[in-house]
């Protein structure tokens, strides 16, 4: 009861703080005046009396403070501390701004990177018990991750003993008929139980039923959440609506949840069922996903599948010889290739934060040193040591708070903008990046860092508080033991900073070089001045081969008539793509050679090679005549010639692919890069397009103004037939530039480059701080030296030598570490070795130069010290 009363009274006083203060003032004034009068009455005159009264009354401020303390106005003093801290910080704007910016940068980088890592690696995948999910492939001698056929899928499903469920999927492009014309959309064909296997239920509507993937079943489709928002405005009435895909009507039966993504098939807006059950065992179109039974491990599942495929090999030797299976953890597949990049980024950010903290601590300590006299005076005036400590801690915490707020805000803004900054390709491969924001994990991490920083910066100044206020502090002679202690510690820290900066710089340099090499990798064509587009013909109007051929002939003619066009050609799949579209071939006369090895197969128009700028090594290209007479001829690339034929003997040989008549090799070209830039070129053969007309193909056009031509292509082709889908128009250089491998390399190089630049800046600032501090400590020594005859040059050299020593150690340590780091980063580098001498040397030079410049400033200041001043001051 009493406690409550007390609390209430305390609150009341709190609220009326001002009044409390003024009333106390008045009371004490009254008391003093009464005492005055009493003393006057005793015979002392006015002024004396007043002074005596004041003396007797005692230290008024102390009285006031103690009264206030009684009432518990603790935070009055805290507010005081804060105000003082703010004033101090405002007075030293340079220091404050540097410290806040440094902290903000470090925190922003760490938080942003952590958010990415969280989204990509830490947050669980949107499936039920993702650890039990595996990704399935067929393994052949050429490689372990190849496609599965429909009959194999059925057999795998039936015969396996280790999976609760097994399903397959295939990425597709559909031609969607819209009022604006025909559009290509991305989609996936799945077996009926795929979502159940993943453990995903649609947010709206229903999942596919069993048997809904058979050819006889009605065509149904499920939308991705993004497609639902983008195309249907998120309206609930979307269920039951139909959409025309590839000329068929599909009913929308459901919408997937917002967090759902399936990286191996992304980007995908329409999820339909397979309906393609007439495909043969030899036709491999699908990839698989399965859920392992509880308690079954990866090795067990792999061994089980091995038995299954062995049995199928025995049963169907024609199609399944040499075809095994690969079982990989789905989580690994989705995250596997991103993990090293992200871990590297996290390390980079951690390093940056380390440097930032080291810098700010060093700044704080330097300032504490400079204020030693102030501390001494305040101590002599009666400030308790606790109060002084609290003052410095408040300053440190205020800096941390400001830096954290700025840094966290920057990070939040950056994350929000990330969706716009991340290129579309990367977003497709890493769809979890789309929802990146300050989630629970990230906020926790931010709070953790801020608290850590707070502790570090709160404690650091305290550690340096002089034990007692002594005469020495007040007079402040040259060096104290504590001064040199800090200097040694500070210089070690700077070496660490410089080394870190070196590591980041070298990494950035190597990545940049990688990126450059990648962009300039040999493509086997003249990529500049080349426009490309993908074409898709509606199946209904172009069901027959000669319809397709007629159209392509007219299309090429029409395109070649466009202004500025030198030549044009078509091909079944454009180069620098996924490298898919493969099959095995047999050499006539040597049927066992590479019998089951799948190589790249393409169909091309006669003008394709010259339009592309390919290089002919032997023989000739095919001509219009070959096309018209349907002569079975084929052009192969250099690698294929090496694989299949003795040198120089390729021309005239015959190869057999699919069920077509044997084709005679008439030409050998330099390898064209059909697949991703960083992969090795595979053997490839090119048949005339008349040998295998397809309603989907690519167009290449050689023209000086390739950028400007792109919109004209679509218009020109639509003149022939508005139902044709023209999509993915881009220049060949653009295609190379925006390819997934180039994008990743470019992104990494930029990011690490950003880190490195920041690290360089911070490291140089740190070096400057240490040298400046050292100079300030040695002012008297310098004065003595100069008075004894040392010239300015000598003094400068003395300072620079100290700086140089630190720099050299930093660079040496950094170079050693960066070689280690580069070796660990090996997987990300392309065409660059970890021991790249020129990069190491360049970085050493750059850092050395910057460090030199940074230390020259305090060195010059030291040299311009007036010896008389130096000896007299302090």
């Amino acid at each position, binding site marked *: 009861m009493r406690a409550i009363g007390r609390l209430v009274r305390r609150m009341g006083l709190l609220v009326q703080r001002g009044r409390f203060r003024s009333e106390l003032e008045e*009371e*004490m004034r009254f008391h003093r005046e009464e005492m005055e009068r009493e003393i006057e009455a005793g015979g002392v005159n006015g002024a004396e009396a007043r002074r005596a009264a004041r003396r007797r009354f005692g230290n008024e401020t102390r009285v006031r403070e103690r009264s206030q303390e*009684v009432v518990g106005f603790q935070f009055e003093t805290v507010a005081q501390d804060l105000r003082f801290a703010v004033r101090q910080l405002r007075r030293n704007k340079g220091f404050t701004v540097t410290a806040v910016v440094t902290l903000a940068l470090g925190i922003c980088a760490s938080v942003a990177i952590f958010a990415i890592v969280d989204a990509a690696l830490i947050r669980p995948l949107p499936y039920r018990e993702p650890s039990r999910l595996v990704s399935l492939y067929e393994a052949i001698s050429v490689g372990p991750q190849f496609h599965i056929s429909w009959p194999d899928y059925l057999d795998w499903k039936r015969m396996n003993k280790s999976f609760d469920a097994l399903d397959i999927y295939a990425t597709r492009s559909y031609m969607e008929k819209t009022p604006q014309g025909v559009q290509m959309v991305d989609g996936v064909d799945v077996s009926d139980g795929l979502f159940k296997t993943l453990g995903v239920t649609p947010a709206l509507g229903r999942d596919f039923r069993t048997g809904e993937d058979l050819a006889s079943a009605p065509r149904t489709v499920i939308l991705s959440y993004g497609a639902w928002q983008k195309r249907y405005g998120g309206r609930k009435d979307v269920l039951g609506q139909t959409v025309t895909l590839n000329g068929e009507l599909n009913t929308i039966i459901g919408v997937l949840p917002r967090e759902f993504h399936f990286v191996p098939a992304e980007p995908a807006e329409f999820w339909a069922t397979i309906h393609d059950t007439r495909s043969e065992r030899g036709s491999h179109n699908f990839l698989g996903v399965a859920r392992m039974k509880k308690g079954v491990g990866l090795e067990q599942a792999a061994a089980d599948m091995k038995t299954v495929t062995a049995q199928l090999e025995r049963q169907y030797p024609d199609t399944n010889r040499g075809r095994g299976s690969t079982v990989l953890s789905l989580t690994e597949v989705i995250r596997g290739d991103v993990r090293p990049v992200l871990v590297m980024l996290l390390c980079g950010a951690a390093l940056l934060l380390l440097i930032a903290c080291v810098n700010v601590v060093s700044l704080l300590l330097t300032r504490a040193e400079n204020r030693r006299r102030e501390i001494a005076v305040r101590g002599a005036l009666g400030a308790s040591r606790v109060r002084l400590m609290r003052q410095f801690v408040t300053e440190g915490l205020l800096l941390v708070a400001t830096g954290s707020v700025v840094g966290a805000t920057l990070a939040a803004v950056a994350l929000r903008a990330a969706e716009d900054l991340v290129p579309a390709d990367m977003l497709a491969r890493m769809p979890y990046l789309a929802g990146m924001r300050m989630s629970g994990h990230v906020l926790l991490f931010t709070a953790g860092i801020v608290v850590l920083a707070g502790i570090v910066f709160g404690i650091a100044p305290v550690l340096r508080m002089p034990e007692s206020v002594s005469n020495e502090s007040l007079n402040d002679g040259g060096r104290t033991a504590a001064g040199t202690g800090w200097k040694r510690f500070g210089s070690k820290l700077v070496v660490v900073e410089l080394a870190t900066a070196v590591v980041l710089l070298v990494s950035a340099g190597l990545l940049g070089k990688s990126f450059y090499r990648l962009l300039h990798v040999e493509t086997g064509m003249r990529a500049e001045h080349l426009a490309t587009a993908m074409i898709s013909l509606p199946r209904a109007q172009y069901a027959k081969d000669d319809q397709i051929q007629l159209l392509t002939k007219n299309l090429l003619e029409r395109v070649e008539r466009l202004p500025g066009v030198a030549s044009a050609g078509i091909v079944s799949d454009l180069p620098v793509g996924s490298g898919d579209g493969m099959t095995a071939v047999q050499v006539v006369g040597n049927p066992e050679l590479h019998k089951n090895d799948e190589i790249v197969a393409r169909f091309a128009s006669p003008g394709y090679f010259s339009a592309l700028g390919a290089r002919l090594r032997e023989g000739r290209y095919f001509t219009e005549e070959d096309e018209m007479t349907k002569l079975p001829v084929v052009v192969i690339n250099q690698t294929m010639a090496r694989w299949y034929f003795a040198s120089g003997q390729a021309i005239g040989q015959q190869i057999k692919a699919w069920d077509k008549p044997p084709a005679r090799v008439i030409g050998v070209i330099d390898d064209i890069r059909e697949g991703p830039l960083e992969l090795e070129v595979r053997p490839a053969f090119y048949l005339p397009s008349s040998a295998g007309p397809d309603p989907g193909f690519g167009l290449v056009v050689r023209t000086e103004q390739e950028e400007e031509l792109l919109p004209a292509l679509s218009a020109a082709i639509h003149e022939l037939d508005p139902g044709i889908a023209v999509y993915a128009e881009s220049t060949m250089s653009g295609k190379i530039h925006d390819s997934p491998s180039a994008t990743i390399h470019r992104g990494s190089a930029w990011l690490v480059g950003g880190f490195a630049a920041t690290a360089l800046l911070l490291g140089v600032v740190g070096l400057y701080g240490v040298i400046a501090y050292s100079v300030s400590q040695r002012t008297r020594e310098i004065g003595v030296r100069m008075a004894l005859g040392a010239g300015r040059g000598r003094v400068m050299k003395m300072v620079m030598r100290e700086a140089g020593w630190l720099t050299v150690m930093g660079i040496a340590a950094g170079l050693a570490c960066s070689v280690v780091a580069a070796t660990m980063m090996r997987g990300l580098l392309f065409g660059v070795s970890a021991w790249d001498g020129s990069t190491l040397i360049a970085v050493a030079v750059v850092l050395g130069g910057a460090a030199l410049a940074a230390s020259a400033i305090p060195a010059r200041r030291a040299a311009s010290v007036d010896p008389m001043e130096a000896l007299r001051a302090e």
Partner: protein
Amino acid sequence: MLILRTLERGPLHGYGIALSIRRISEDVLTVEEGSLYPALQRSLLEGWVKAEWGKTETNRRARFYTLTPEGHRQLGVEMSEFEQMIAAIGRVLAGSQAG
């Protein structure tokens, strides 16, 4: 305790309390102003005294403190505790003398 006892006789302002204690103790006890006001604040906070502004005999404005019923009770408690302590000290002194 001394403050409360002084106020028992009637409301006083701060200077008056200090004066009274000095006079009655015949200059033996002087209350440091530095401890008087914090003590008054604590008493206010605990609810043992009430304060209000009024006019002195000389028509000057001053803050007068009055004992509250809780203050009365507290005074009683403190005085009995003090008497117990005095008795105990007395016993110890007497004991050592006798022994």
